[in-house]
């Protein structure tokens, strides 16, 4: 499927935002899903780049990504009016929920997919958002989260804004505030009251799981994939007790407590 780029801009050094005209995708896409984007019309780079959907507005879908290599660098050079070859939406949507206390914890570029989730769940649930980055200028999408009317707390490594320290410290405090008056358990359990969704670097996810154990944490896994469609078995997240989660198909939102991070 080819989509036209309607807006392309850099949000901060090394982070780009693209709005694509993709009416078909916007009708079907759910939070947690991703698009698999070709960055070249030729054979190099060969593989698509999986990018989580950051937001949806009318017939447009937004992708926000960090330049991590040659492929994403090429994607960052895309301009309004260009066409992109896009596959998706792919992946299993984040579990749906209502009437719950939900904490969203985003670190760096991991903030991006949480915005779409927040937009979809903030009416039917009590949502609080904690976002972290190295420094103020690298905090992403804060204005967009605030416009949803949900409480947003910030953490930076250098203390240039918000809490100086790890975003996971804020997330833990936020979750503990909830659990003091309500009961947290697994979200498969209809009696449960809360859930935590997180996206960010692996060490951040591992730290969050450790802090909140045994409260389940749903993580958006950001990793290299082969096909993105579940046919090549190249993306594998080891599970505790053996085996792997194929996160393009069974994820990218996975129960982090069951994964080896």
């Amino acid at each position, binding site marked *: 499927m080819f989509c036209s780029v309607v807006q392309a801009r850099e949000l901060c050094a090394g982070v780009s935002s693209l709005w694509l005209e993709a009416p078909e995708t916007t009708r079907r896409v759910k939070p947690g899903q991703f698009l698999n984007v*070709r960055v070249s019309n030729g*054979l*190099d*780079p*060969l*593989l*698509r780049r999986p990018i989580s959907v950051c937001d949806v507005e009318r017939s447009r879908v937004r992708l926000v990504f960090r330049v991590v290599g040659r492929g994403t660098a090429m994607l960052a050079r895309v301009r309004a009016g260009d066409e992109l070859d896009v*596959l998706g939406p792919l992946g299993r949507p984040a579990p749906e929920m209502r009437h719950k206390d939900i904490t969203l914890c985003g670190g760096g570029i991991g903030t991006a997919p949480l915005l779409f989730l927040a937009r979809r769940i903030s009416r039917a649930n009590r949502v609080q958002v904690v976002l972290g980055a190295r420094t103020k200028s690298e905090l992403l999408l804060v204005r967009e989260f605030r416009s949803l009317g949900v409480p947003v707390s910030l953490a930076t490594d250098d203390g240039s804004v918000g809490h100086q320290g790890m975003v996971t410290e804020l997330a833990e405090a936020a979750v503990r505030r909830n659990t003091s008056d309500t009961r947290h358990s697994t979200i498969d359990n209809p009696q449960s009251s809360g859930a935590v969704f997180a996206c960010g670097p692996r060490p951040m996810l591992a730290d969050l799981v450790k802090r909140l154990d045994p409260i389940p944490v749903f993580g958006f896994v950001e*990793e*290299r*994939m*082969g*096909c993105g*469609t*579940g*046919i*090549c*078995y*190249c*993306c*594998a*997240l*080891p599970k505790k007790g*053996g*085996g*792997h989660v194929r996160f393009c198909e069974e994820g990218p939102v996975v129960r982090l407590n069951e994964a080896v991070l």
Partner: protein
Amino acid sequence: MNPKVILGQTAFVNPVLAASGTFEFGLKFKSVANRLGGVVTKAITLQPRVGNPPPRIWEFAGGVINSVGLENPGLEKFCNDVVPLTSKLLCRVVVNIAGFTVDEYGELAARLESESIDALEVNVSCPNVKEGGALFGQQPSVVEAITALVRRRTTRTVIVKLTANFVDPVETAKAAEAAGADAVTLINTLFGLALDGNGRPFLGGRNGGVSGPALKPFALYCVDRVAAAVKIPVIGCGGIMSATDALDFLSAGARMVQVGTANLVNPEAALNVWNGMKEHARRNRWSNWDTVVGRIRRQD
């Protein structure tokens, strides 16, 4: 134009197959699978395998290196859960089997004899396992022994998938032919090593198998040599991204082709290859593939 190809006792409606390991079991994209000649399944082993630790794929200018390590549900689960679904596909289903001893190939073939499948592709060439795998495929005598055993245990069409890693596939193809194979597939991935830029191996399985466009010239070279040396049909595989690539393999002597890595980029890739070939055949008014297959030798 009659696009049909017959291997052993199996008639394929067209010469395009999805290669093993790159299309799972053909069930995720049935509308694509149904219009191909066939789907070759992920390799099936006797016991379930969790595969290699991640990361399992590395990209380079020219293709990818993978080290999936034969992750699969194992023979029993495959027969019970997967075959009932693949048997409903409209295309031919070729089951890729991988053993860690010679005898395991016999067991795999025997168990699959009662299943609703069309053919076996005997994998003597996986680069991503420590025992068996490509080591078997490097020894003509072992290829012959495995092929002969599978031949005895199955009435289905037997295809042997050969490696070109440190072995002349002409020798192993002759061994497969002598032992009763109906066809050979070549080439499987080539050995490869990816480093992370900091002096460490990148892939969780350390070594991997190289696939993609970079393989095509060498794969064509192998197909050309093998097709001239054996009478059984050759299935060409290695870096096919387009109909032109596929027709090159036919020109070099292949009767059929397998599309592999291209499926990772576009799940409709194999179908696009077939549609392109069909269009090319129509424009050139070919009545069947004989006009094309091996035509480079006829010019020598």
